C-alpha cells in the first residue's frame, strides 16, 4: 500500500502528465490537419492552373490547326478553283453556240461562287484574322461588294479607335459574319429598302445595327416559323451567346445583333 505522501505525489504527477500528453496530441492533430488542408488547397490550385495551361495549349493547337487548314485550302483548292475560273472564261470566248456558252458560263459562275465561299471560310478559319479590325474590314468589304452589286446605296459607320487591340475569337467572327451575310441577303431580297445604314460598335460586345431605310418590315416571329433564314440566324447567335432584335420604326426596319467578344 502506498503512503499518503506517495499517493498525493503520484496523483499530482498523473494529473499533470496526462493533460500535457493530451494537449500535445491535440496540438499535433490540429497543426498537422491544417498543414494538410493548406497542402490540399495548394494542390487544388496547382491542378486548376495545370488544367488552364492545358486548355490554353489545346486552344493554341486548335488555332494552329485552323491556320494550317486555311493555308492549305488557300494554296491548293484556291489555286485550283482560280484555274477553273480562268479556263472557263477562256472557253467562254471560244464557245461555238449559245447552249455551250451557257454551260460554260454556269461553270464560271459556280467556280466564282466557290472561290468567294472558300475565301470566306479561309477568313473565318485563319486565327491570323482574329481581331476586331479584320472583322470590321471584312464586313465593310462584303457589304460594299454585295450592296453595290444590287445598286443599294449604303453607309458603314464605325469608330476606328474601338478596333485597336481587340481580339475577336474565330467562332464569334465567323457566326457574326454569316448572320450579317444573311441579314443583307434578306435586305436585298425581301425588304425593298431604298438605302442601308450599317453601324458597328465594339466594346465588350460586338454590336452590328443594320437599318433598312424605307423597308416594308416584317414580323420576325412569323418569318422565323416560315423560313430557315431567321431560324438559322437565331441558332448562330445562340451558339455565340449573342442576341438579335428587330425594330420597326416609321422610317426604317432595324436589325440589331450583338455577341460578347469573350465567351463565358
Amino acid at each position, binding site marked *: 500500500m502506498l503512503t499518503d505522501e506517495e499517493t498525493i505525489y503520484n496523483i499530482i504527477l498523473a494529473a499533470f502528465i496526462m493533460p500535457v500528453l493530451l494537449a500535445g496530441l491535440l496540438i499535433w*492533430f490540429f497543426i498537422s490537419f491544417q498543414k494538410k488542408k493548406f497542402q*490540399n488547397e495548394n494542390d*487544388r490550385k496547382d491542378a486548376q492552373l495545370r488544367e488552364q495551361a492545358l486548355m490554353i495549349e489545346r486552344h493554341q493547337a486548335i488555332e494552329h490547326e485552323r491556320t494550317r487548314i486555311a493555308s492549305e485550302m488557300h494554296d491548293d483548292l484556291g489555286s485550283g478553283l482560280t484555274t477553273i475560273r480562268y479556263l472557263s472564261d477562256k472557253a467562254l470566248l471560244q464557245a461555238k453556240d449559245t447552249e455551250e456558252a451557257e454551260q460554260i458560263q454556269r461553270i464560271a459562275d459556280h467556280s466564282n461562287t466557290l472561290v468567294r465561299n472558300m475565301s470566306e471560310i479561309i477568313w473565318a478559319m485563319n486565327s491570323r484574322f482574329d481581331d476586331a479590325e479584320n472583322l470590321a474590314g471584312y464586313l465593310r468589304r462584303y457589304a460594299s461588294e454585295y450592296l453595290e452589286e444590287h445598286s443599294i446605296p449604303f453607309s458603314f459607320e464605325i469608330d476606328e479607335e474601338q478596333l485597336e487591340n481587340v481580339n475577336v475569337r474565330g467562332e464569334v467572327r465567323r457566326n457574326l459574319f454569316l448572320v450579317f451575310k444573311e441579314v443583307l441577303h434578306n435586305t436585298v431580297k425581301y425588304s425593298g429598302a431604298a438605302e442601308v445604314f450599317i453601324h458597328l460598335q465594339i466594346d465588350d460586345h460586338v454590336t452590328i445595327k443594320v437599318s433598312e431605310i424605307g423597308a416594308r418590315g416584317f414580323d420576325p416571329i412569323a418569318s422565323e416559323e416560315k423560313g430557315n433564314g431567321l431560324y438559322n440566324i437565331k441558332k448562330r447567335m445562340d451558339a455565340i451567346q449573342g442576341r438579335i432584335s428587330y425594330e420597326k420604326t416609321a422610317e426604317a426596319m432595324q436589325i440589331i445583333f450583338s455577341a460578347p467578344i469573350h465567351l463565358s
Partner: protein
Amino acid sequence: LLLFESIFIATLTLSAWFTYKGQKGPFPYFLPFMVMVVSFEIPIDIWFKSLYGHNLHLKNLMAKLCIYYYLFVFYHYYRDRVWSMLLKYIILLYMTITLVWNFGFQDQDSIDYISYNAGYLILIPLMLLYLHEVIYKKDYYNVLRDPYVYFIFGILIFYTSSFPILGFINMLITYNPNYKAFYHLLNLGNIFLSLAYLGAVLCSQTKKPSIISS
C-alpha cells in the same frame, strides 16, 4: 439530473429519432449502446443505490461494457486490415479475463481500475492510429463531419481528465470522506464524453465527409 445525463438523454432521443427516420447511426449498434448507457446512468443507478447504498459494482460493469463497445467500434472500423484477426483475439481475451475478474475476484465494494486502464491501453493505440491515418493516409476532408473524430476526442479527454482520479479511485473516493470534490471532477469528464456522443450523432446526420482528391 446532472448535465452529462441530460446530454446522454438528448443523444439517445436524437439517435432514436434518426433511426426511426431510416438514417444510419454514426457507429454500428449505437442506439442499443445509448439505451444501455442511459439505463445504467439513471434508473439502474438509482435502483442500485437504494438497494446497496452505493453503485460501485454497477460502475465496474458499466465501465467494462463501455470499453467493450468502444473496442467493438474500432474493430468494426479496422475489420478489413490484415491484423484485424489479432485485434479480435486481443479483444476477446480482454473481455474474457475482465468478465471473469469482475464476477470472480473483484471486490464489489471497490472500483476495478485495472480492467479499466487495461482496456484503454488497447483502445488508445487504435484511436491514435485513426488520427494518424486522417493526417497522413486519407485524402483531405472536413473532420468536423467525421463522427470518429468526435468519438476519439471525447474518449481521450474523458480518460485524460479522469485518469488520475480513476487510477487512484479507491483511495480518493471509496475510502475518502471528502470524495465529493473528485466526484465532481469525474462528472466534468463525463460532460466531454456525452458531448462527443452528441457531436457524433449530429455530424453523421449532416453530409458525409466530403473527400476532395488532391
